[in-house]
């Protein structure tokens, strides 16, 4: 199967691929273990509000993160812990945001998956589905104005978000402007509890591409090898200014919509079908088969990551939570224009 990925038998390609694959696997494992930790903190009542995991989507997400360059733009969604970390987000940023630390990038003002560092190309999603795609377009258009070439933007969304007007307007906009946008659709069979049969009536979401005049590739989202291949190809096409690219990955959400959700509605046939396979397990079987790691190395890696996560969480839990009195309650950047009314002196 590796052969399908590599230009036939060129050795340096094989080496590069191995390295990339191992990096991707590490971020998949990190994301999975970090998700487990969030889940535990949530059950312990240490996280208020929602907790949204990416279980089953790590291969696709990590493939994006390891393929992008730091100078690219990435608009992840709720299930992209792996991609975020691979693109450069620190565990510390992630944990600080979930725990609302005032030292995190969102300073306790926003939380959980609503985090990022715009200046590093990590876009902090707003909740409204589909809304980030046109923001990526804007960054890419601005770079064209600034004569910065060779960077791309990836926006991730789910099957459900394809029903939003925002998705449609933004993808069409990217196509009209021929922007280097790569739109990655994780078709994980459900939007919260809603099956795709109640979400769209086309055979595959890939059928939408032609209507926008964008290229599309479908991919088995449970297989890191093909995810890496398809994602790399799409991103390099966009980088070469071949216009917007769409990727449609088929996979299954291996968790609830959020940790509050038992997801009893998920069809057991799907769970037992190929898309129900755990991408992490498949990825590890592959690298064991390739003898890139052995079981004890895998165990060490796992322990090392768990240690890192535990240390980070412990550190963040010692950090000060935001102080409403120290807080600057100002929504406007223009300090000279900000008003303070009596009602703001609670």
């Amino acid at each position, binding site marked *: 199967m590796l052969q399908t990925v590599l230009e036939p038998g060129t050795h340096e390609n094989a080496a590069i691929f191995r390295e990339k694959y191992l990096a991707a696997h590490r971020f998949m494992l990190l994301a999975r273990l970090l998700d487990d930790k969030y889940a535990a903190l949530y059950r312990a009542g240490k*996280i*208020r*509000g*929602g907790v949204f995991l990416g279980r089953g989507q790590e291969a696709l997400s990590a493939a994006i993160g390891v393929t992008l360059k730091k100078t690219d733009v990435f608009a992840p969604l709720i299930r992209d812990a792996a991609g975020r970390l691979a693109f450069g987000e620190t565990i510390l940023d992630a944990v600080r945001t979930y725990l*609302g630390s*005032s030292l995190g990038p*969102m300073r*306790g*003002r*926003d*939380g*959980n998956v*609503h985090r990022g560092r715009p200046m590093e190309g990590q876009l902090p999603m*707003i*909740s*409204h*589905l589909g809304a980030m795609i046109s923001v990526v377009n804007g960054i890419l258009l601005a770079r064209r104005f600034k004569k910065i070439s060779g960077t791309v933007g990836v926006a991730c969304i789910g099957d*459900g*978000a394809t*029903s*939003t*007007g*925002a998705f449609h307007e933004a993808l069409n906009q990217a196509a009209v402007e021929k922007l280097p946008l790569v739109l990655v659709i994780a078709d994980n069979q459900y*939007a*919260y*509890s*809603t099956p795709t049969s*109640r*979400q*769209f009536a086309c055979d595959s979401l890939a059928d939408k591409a032609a209507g926008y005049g964008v290229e599309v590739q479908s991919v088995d989202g449970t297989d890191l090898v093909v995810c890496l291949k398809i994602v790399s190809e799409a991103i390099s096409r966009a980088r070469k200014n071949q216009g917007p690219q769409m990727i449609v990955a088929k996979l299954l959400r291996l968790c609830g919509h959020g940790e509050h959700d038992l997801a009893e*509605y998920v069809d057991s046939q799907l769970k037992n079908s190929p898309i129900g396979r755990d991408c992490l397990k498949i990825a590890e079987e592959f690298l064991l088969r390739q003898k890139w790691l052995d079981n004890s190395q895998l165990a060490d890696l796992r322990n090392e990551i768990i240690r890192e996560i535990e240390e980070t969480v412990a550190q963040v839990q010692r950090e000060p*939570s*935001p*102080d*409403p*009195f120290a*807080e600057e*309650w*100002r*929504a406007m950047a223009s300090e000279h224009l900000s*008003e303070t*009314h*009596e*009602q*703001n002196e*609670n």
Partner: protein
Amino acid sequence: MNKTKTDSGISYLDAIREAQARALRDDPRVFIYGQDVGAFGGAFKATKNLAQEFPGRVLDSPISEDAMVGLAVGAAIEGMRPIVEMQFADFSTVGFNQIVNQAATLFWRTNIPCPITVRLPFGGTEGGGPFHSQCIEAIYAHYPGLIVLTPATVEDAYAMLLEAVALDDPVIFCEHKFLYRHLKAEKLPSEALPIGKARIAREGRDLTVVTYSAMVHEALEAARELSGEGWEIEIVDLRSVKPLDTDTVVASVARTGKLLCVGEAWPWGGVTAEIITRVTSEGYGLLDAPPQRLNAKDTPVPYHPNLWAAHRPTARSVAAAARNLLRQ
């Protein structure tokens, strides 16, 4: 009708579910449309089992708020009485155009009524953050043609939702997420005040607090605190912010001479500003101190519980604002 938290009984959320069940039972024109409202019973379980009890009448929608509302308007033209559930009020901004320009203008333009009910689970909760906490009732109340309801009690949640579905106008039904499980009642009401009438939630002598939805309960707690200090606070629960029962508010201010308006929403042009404007322009001489408003701070709603607690009015800040006024 002063609610206190009990572990048994009917919750505000139950009331909303029961009102919809009854509307479906009593009126074949009623159906429910929204994301995950079907077999799953809705993100908050406000439609739990309704799809099973009323087959084919509780439909899961795609994630398409604009088309959700547009479809409801069309169904209403054809004589149905759709209930649309927005998963969170904050997402109704995506359906905003269909609400304010399609639904709200239909009757005035064509003389054909538009009886749709748009349910907005709204208001702040711990960890809700900027996009799952908003109070945007004023946005809808600003537009002609919409009715905007903000029940504060289990009984009102039930009775007002039933009345909303029966009304011939588009109703923005703001149901507070914080109250969903926080409030309990012994039984559902057999009758209630009509929509458009405010309720004296607490009688008092020294100051009138005008508020609505979850803030009614913060105000009640503040009033209990202040009565310990010898002050008797009258609390007006608006119930409906459009139409707005100016008469009841003015009558209360006539008794107390002091007005504090409390809203969980942002201050600029909010319900509190509308109330103060009506009282001062229509009941000017009645005030013996400047009217005051207490709102959320003029920033997005923060995620961290500490910040959130300071961002919105609370019993503590209501009591403090009331004391300032009472001392004048």
